[in-house]
């Protein structure tokens, strides 16, 4: 609700669109858990979900056509849903290797990187028809950032922080927990322009973000991103440290992006260390308070009710 309020307050979406969304919620599930309402209102008759990024003012994507965009997935997600079955089918006389999901030692990590590079440099490594996004196996949304921004972020950290951990923090991936291994998947920005089926937008409250999603943030970086039609992730480490500015990386959302083995790359980021959101410093309540700022819940309810019914 706070994210709806932020979108309304900062005119990320129009008042009419908020009215339409809220009315749909009311019609779909008259009562119940707010998350369930969201799930329900997004569902279609076949159980699939409706994408709501159309609610956002779809601003021209100002990314340089030569830029690359990045998203991250767990290693097992990649192996299960993106790697072609043909790669998992051994042929007599030809040596094959199996990527395990959690390289434990530096040696194993090096082997993983080598093997992954070998695989993704081969034509046809991706499963035919595979798309990038979430939730697998039939992704609907694809959240992405600029590859250069992610690279800058992960390279700034000390060697004691794994790239996967920094990527998790910078991208605000609160559901990414200790011990999981992540890959960065990148693809050319021009793919979004050249594919008429792909819609891309600045994310809003309606796009199924996780529980650390902020539809609008103050701060110079976030404001700049906003003016360019990008949202901004919540940096989980900054949240945990109580920083004033929580802005992480620029982010946009699209419907799932068809994976092309020739233009997509996969890079092993390593193991995520530590779990965020377990302590009072960065739990749900703290984040909600940070998101809400000085406005009280009753004030938000009052303002939104007025906007929707007015």
């Amino acid at each position, binding site marked *: 609700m706070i994210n709806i309020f932020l979108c309304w307050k900062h005119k990320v979406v129009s008042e009419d669109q908020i009215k339409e969304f809220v009315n749909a919620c009311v*019609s779909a599930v008259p009562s119940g858990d707010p998350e369930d309402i969201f799930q329900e209102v997004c569902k279609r008759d*076949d159980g699939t979900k409706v994408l709501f990024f*159309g609610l956002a003012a779809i601003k021209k994507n100002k990314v340089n056509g030569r830029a690359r965009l990045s998203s991250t997935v767990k290693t097992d997600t990649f192996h299960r849903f993106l790697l072609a079955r043909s790669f998992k089918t051994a042929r007599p006389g030809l040596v094959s290797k199996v990527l395990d*999901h959690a390289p434990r030692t530096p040696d194993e990590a090096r082997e993983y990187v080598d093997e992954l590079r070998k695989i993704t440099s081969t034509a046809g490594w991706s499963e035919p028809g595979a798309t990038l996004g979430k*939730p*697998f196996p*039939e992704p609907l949304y694809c959240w992405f950032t600029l590859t250069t921004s992610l690279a800058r972020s992960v390279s700034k950290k000390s060697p004691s922080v794994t790239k996967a951990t920094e990527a998790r923090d910078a991208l605000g991936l609160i559901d990414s927990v200790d011990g999981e291994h992540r890959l960065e998947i990148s693809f050319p920005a021009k793919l979004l322009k050249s594919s008429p089926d792909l*819609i891309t937008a600045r994310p809003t409250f309606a796009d199924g973000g996780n529980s650390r999603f902020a539809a609008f943030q103050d701060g110079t970086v976030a404001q700049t991103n906003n003016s360019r039609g990008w949202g901004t992730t919540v940096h989980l480490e900054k949240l945990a440290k109580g920083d004033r500015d929580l802005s992480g990386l620029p982010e946009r959302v699209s419907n799932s992006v068809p994976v092309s083995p020739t233009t997509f790359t996969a890079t092993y980021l390593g193991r995520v260390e530590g779990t965020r959101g377990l302590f009072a410093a960065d739990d749900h309540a703290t984040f909600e308070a940070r998101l809400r700022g000085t406005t009280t819940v009753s004030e938000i309810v009052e303002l939104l009710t007025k906007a929707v019914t007015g």
Partner: protein
Amino acid sequence: MNPTSKLSLSTHFAHFEENEFCDWLSSGFKVFYARKTLLRSAARIPTSPIPSPAVHEGLEPRPFDFAYSLIGRRESLLDDIEFIYEQYIPEDKKIVFRRSLGRLLRQSTDDAQFPEPAISDLIYIMAKVRAHESLESLAPVVGRGKYGVDKQWLQYEAIATLKTLLPAREAILGLRDLVTLQNFHEAYSFDVLIALCRAEPTDWLSAFELLRGRIANLWEEARKVDDAAVAAVEEEGRKFTRMFADLIPTNEIAMQLPDIKVSNSPAGPYASGIWFPRNLFAGDTPPIKILHEESSFSDDSITVPIEVTIQPSRRAIMVCDSHEYRFLYSLNLDFNPEDFLNRTDDTQPVTAARVSFVPLLRSGIRRKVTCFFSRNKFRDSLSTKSKADLTKV
């Protein structure tokens, strides 16, 4: 999901036994993938962002029944189920859930309605929830029968899960079982071999013996493909040996090496097994050096200039010949040689540098003894019994 819902979900699972978990998963997957089939045939892009309220009528059946609202919230269906396992299945039922995964996998072979993608899902979920209790079901399901032939990618996925759960005993046994089965893909032989060596360095020889026939078959199959395939197998053999030498303590190599069975098979180096010691010791820069040193040997001590043994390589196996014995010593220098050489106190043995006395391969002797060495001499620590066990060449 509010606290009441969480309690309600946990209450459901609190009454579950293996059968109920199997039914819940099986029907959940069936409904889920039936919907996915619908989705695939539907337009990918919604024409309107707002669904009509009417379409929410008649949604049943919902995938995963009472837990349906947790499905589709995380990165993948696998993560959703892992999340349900972690958060909603009571602690005392977790082991029951883990066991049910293997049971359902076995049952799926006789269930024509079980969705094909869900077979893979089960295998991946085993890794996610560390279902050691179910790993024994993997090899029989993917290594023989209809899955072993028709769904070969499952073997890749099973190996990935087993490798991920190493060095758990159940994962080692799962890999070993798989290797012995009819439909094991010999293409994975080197991969499985190094995984087993890593998991059990003290038993690398049995892993080698388990897979040497498979590797020989792989080489034979490669010969039927082309020269490049043969070269790839041979390169993989060299790569394996390098990894092996880096991975396994030299002591372990030297201790087990004498038991390796190498023949002069005319069928070639892979059938004879000689490819392995050849890769290990031969060439200009072998992974492990063999240093030959003529020494005088007595019952009490062997005197060898230690510089000879340390400087050439930190990893070496040294052969010492006397008029009576030929011994093979492994030097596992897991300390800084510089520190060792600069030591001022030679009275204490360097326990970090254990030297294994192992009879040389072709001597045919099977006894093993261990001693310590100091900077200037080997300090013999042979037990009386060990000495007595030494056999003349």
